[in-house]
Structure formats: structure tokens, C-alpha cells
């Protein structure tokens, strides 16, 4: 059974058909890419997957279960994590806390235990500290754990967002333009990190990107969207050499 299966997914905003009859099957462990010109509906698709928007048609099956109609928080608990196109970090919190807060569903103690500072508070906080630090280390952010998230340089903020999403232990990780604003060195580093994350944490990754080198470099399968609907679907070689795809990006 595929990890994620999208069937005939569609959403209309008033008269605008932002996403139309999209079908997608992502197998467990795949590195899947989602590309298309600006306005093609890629982020809208992410928002549909995470319950930010409710589709007007179609179903989304995560591990066989239809998640349409569930709230964003419920979908996160069900196993989908995401990053955002315009970074949404918790600016007034430290780097470490940004990741720790994502662990709140995994490592729990009750409100009373927290307020009364019972032993379980100290134990669980220590567990969270360690886990958070481990995740930060993967992204080379452990040195900055006490910085406020807003004080990190742009590239590191993007990495922190991925780290935070990872802390929720998702089955499927959605990355929305993770390489935006990065130079070629940072992008290459990111490619390695994404591959490492996929292997080490045994998760499936769906990413939106405009950087074709990254997409071609790590994605195993790519779906191309244009005007909200599928334009092409296949391996990087197939898709990037598809004349319709090239036309969509470059124009006639």
C-alpha cells in the first residue's frame, strides 16, 4: 500500500480552480518532487494535504486512511509534517525550544506535574533536551541552540524549520522550497541533509522546489503541476526533458 495516495483532488476558490483532478501515489521511503511554474498550485496542494484548506473534491489517503476533513493538528498527529514557503519559526523562542515544542506530543507530562515540578518533569525535560539536541546536531545547529530563532541567518532558519518538523516524528515530510535563497554550496549541503534525513529517520519526503539541480539530484519521482493540474509525472530524466514541461517554464 502506498504511503500517500491522492485521488482526483481538487479545490475551487470562488471561480478559480486552483487544484484540479490531481492524482499522486507516493511509496514509503520515496523522495518525491513537486514542481511547476509559479501559481501552479503546489503550495495549495501542500495546504490541502495538511488540512489548511478543505478540498472540494477528491480524497487523500495516508496509510489507507482518508484524512480529508481532519484538522491540521490531527493530520500532524496522523504523521504529516511540513515546512513553509515563507519561514514560520517561533521567532521569540530559542532554537532549542523551537524543536522542543515540536516534541510536546511525543514526550508528555501532565500540567500538574509541570507546575509542581514533580520528578517526572525533570526526567521528561531531560529526555526532550537530548532528543532536540540530537536532531539539531543532524542539521549542524547544536552550537546555536540558545540563540533566538529570529537571530539565525536565513539558511539556518530554513534548516531549523526542517528540524522542527522532523521532531514530530512524521511518516511523510513536506518541504516547501527548502532551498529558496540558498547559494550552490548551501544547496548541495541541503541535498545531502535531505538524503541523510530520509535514510536515518526512515521517512518519506515530498518537496516543492524551483531549483532544478536539487530536484534532479535527489528526487526519485516528480509530479509537474501547471494551472492546478497535472502536466507530467515520471522520473527526473523523463520529466525534465518533456517538451511540455519546458514550455510551461520558459514559455513558447
Amino acid at each position, binding site marked *: 500500500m502506498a504511503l500517500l495516495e491522492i485521488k482526483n483532488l481538487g479545490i475551487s*476558490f*470562488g471561480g478559480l480552480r486552483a487544484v484540479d483532478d490531481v492524482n499522486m501515489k507516493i511509496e514509503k521511503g520515496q523522495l518525491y518532487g513537486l514542481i511547476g511554474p509559479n501559481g501552479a498550485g503546489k*503550495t495549495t496542494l501542500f*495546504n490541502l494535504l495538511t488540512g*489548511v484548506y478543505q478540498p472540494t473534491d477528491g480524497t487523500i489517503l495516508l496509510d489507507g486512511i482518508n484524512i480529508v476533513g481532519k484538522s491540521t493538528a490531527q493530520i500532524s498527529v496522523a504523521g504529516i509534517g511540513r515546512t*513553509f514557503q*515563507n519561514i514560520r519559526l517561533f521567532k521569540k523562542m530559542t532554537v532549542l525550544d523551537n524543536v522542543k515544542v515540536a516534541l510536546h506530543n511525543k514526550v508528555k507530562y501532565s500540567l500538574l506535574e509541570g507546575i509542581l515540578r514533580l520528578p517526572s518533569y525533570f526526567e521528561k525535560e531531560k529526555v526532550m533536551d537530548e532528543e532536540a539536541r540530537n536532531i539539531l546536531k543532524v542539521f549542524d545547529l547544536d552550537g546555536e541552540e540558545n540563540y533566538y530563532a529570529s537571530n539565525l541567518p536565513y539558511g539556518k532558519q530554513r534548516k531549523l524549520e526542517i528540524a522542527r518538523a522532523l521532531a514530530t516524528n512524521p511518516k511523510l515530510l513536506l518541504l516547501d522550497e527548502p532551498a529558496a535563497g540558498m547559494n550552490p554550496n548551501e544547496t548541495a549541503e541541503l541535498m545531502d541533509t535531505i538524503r541523510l534525513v530520509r535514510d536515518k529517520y526512515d521517512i518519506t519526503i515530498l518537496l516543492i522546489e524551483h531549483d532544478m539541480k536539487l530536484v534532479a539530484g535527489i528526487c526519485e519521482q516528480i509530479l509537474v503541476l501547471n494551472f492546478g493540474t497535472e502536466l507530467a509525472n515520471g522520473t527526473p530524466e523523463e520529466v525534465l526533458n518533456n517538451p511540455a514541461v519546458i514550455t510551461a517554464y520558459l514559455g513558447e
Partner: protein
Amino acid sequence: MVNIIEQVINGFRTGSIYALIALGYTMVYGIAKMINFAHGDIIMVGAYALYVFIVLLKLPVIVAVLFTIGLCALLGMMIERIAYKPLRKAPPLAVLITAIGVSFFLQNASLLIFKANPIKFQSIVKVKTIIIGDVAIAGITVVTLVVTLVSMIILTLFINKTKAGSAMRAVSEDKGAAQLMGINVNRTISMTFAIGSALAAVAGILFLCQYQSLKPTMGALPGIKAFVAAVLGGIGSVPGAMLGGILLGLIESISKAYISTQLSDAIVFGVLILVLLLKPTGLLGKKRIEKV
């Protein structure tokens, strides 16, 4: 039977005043994306200004009315320049607190100057009561309805047919783009506040002539109710503010007559909560999609 018609007419009258005030809220929200908490208190300033001009300075009625409207328009622009403009890039919570500060300031300044005791005021409306069949319509009601209707027509024409009006619409759609098109955003925002405050002044004058009494907190409750009206009609929508105002006036009038005066305030808040929970964009509002 007669009772219902009178209640409905009262509802239209109260609703007209709410509509005038709601227009100010909605225009400012459309342009500056903020709820001007102090808007209701401009009504109070308008009422006291009229009192000062007519009773204390003994100016002719027309002059006093014009001065009042002008004063409030100026006040609105000044508040925007001093308190809101520095916070254009600040988080919404900061703007909200500042607006509350301005509202509080106006109320307490008025309290200091005029003291808390209600001041009696004799209406300047000399129109006689109209009697149609069994129904008596007070002069002030007629004037309120006419003035409001005329104001709304002028405002709609202004927004849709003039260059300045288009500028206002442009800035409320997309500030950045409007600026790139050569529109003076600051001047447009100032003008919006001026017009909204002028309308509030008119509402204040009509309100004063209706209830014939002044006190520093007189603007607070009508202001909040007009806000509910703006939300009901769809915040950001000018026809919505008009519709919401009239509707809320009717709801309040009927509640006061057939349920209870005490509870009518609570009912108005109830309307707000219902609208926000069931259809947050209001009756005529556009669905604003937050970019995620």
C-alpha cells in the same frame, strides 16, 4: 400592529446611525487592516464639539455643524498620524493596544474637561413630527434617515467615481502595488481616516439630537455596536457596513421591544459571536485567504 411599524422605524433610525459609524470602521479596516478602537469615541467628541459650538460659543447652527465635522475629520487624521502610522509594521497586538489607549485618552480627556455629569442639550433639529395614519415619526428620525441615505449615496459615488476613491480602493487591495502606481499611500490613508471621522461626527450630531444628553462615555457602546454591525455586514465592505448597520438596528430595536432592554446589549454581543463563529466574513464580505 402600529407598535411593530414604529419599532421597525426606530430600528431603521438606530441602524442608520450604526451604519454611519460602521462605515468608518470598515473603511479604516480595509485600508489600514486595523480596527480603530477609538472610532466610537469620535462620536462623543463630535457631540461635545457641537455642544461647545452652539451652546458655549453661540455659533449659527450650520456653522457649528460644519465646524464639528471638520474638527472630527482633523482629529481622525491626527490620531492616525501620531498613534497609528508609527506602528504600520508592528504586530497587530501592539496596534490594538494603542487604539485602546487612544480611546481611553479621548474618554478621559473629555471627562476631565466636561466632568462626568450628563449635560443636557436641546436638539437643533426643528423638523416637525410626521404623522402617517396611526404612526408618528419624530422629526429627528426623518432627518436621521434622510441624512444617512444622502451620506451613503455620496460616499458610494465618491468611492466608485472619483480618482481619490479609486485610490482608496487600490490601497485597500494592495498597498505596495498602489504605491508603485504612483498613489500617495499616506495621503490616501489620512483621507480615509478623515472621511470616516467626518461620518462619525455626523452620527454624533444625530445621536445627540436624538438622546439630548452628553457624557464622556456616550460613544463607547454605540461604537462597539457599530463594530458588530460592520462585522455582520462584512468587515471591509462598504455596502456591508450599511446593510449590517440597518440590520443590527432592527435586531436591537425588536429585542428592546419584545425581549428586554437589559438583554438587548447582550444580544448584540451574541450576534457578534454568532457571526464570527458561523460566517466570519459577514454577509457581504469577501473571503480573505490567508497565505500559508
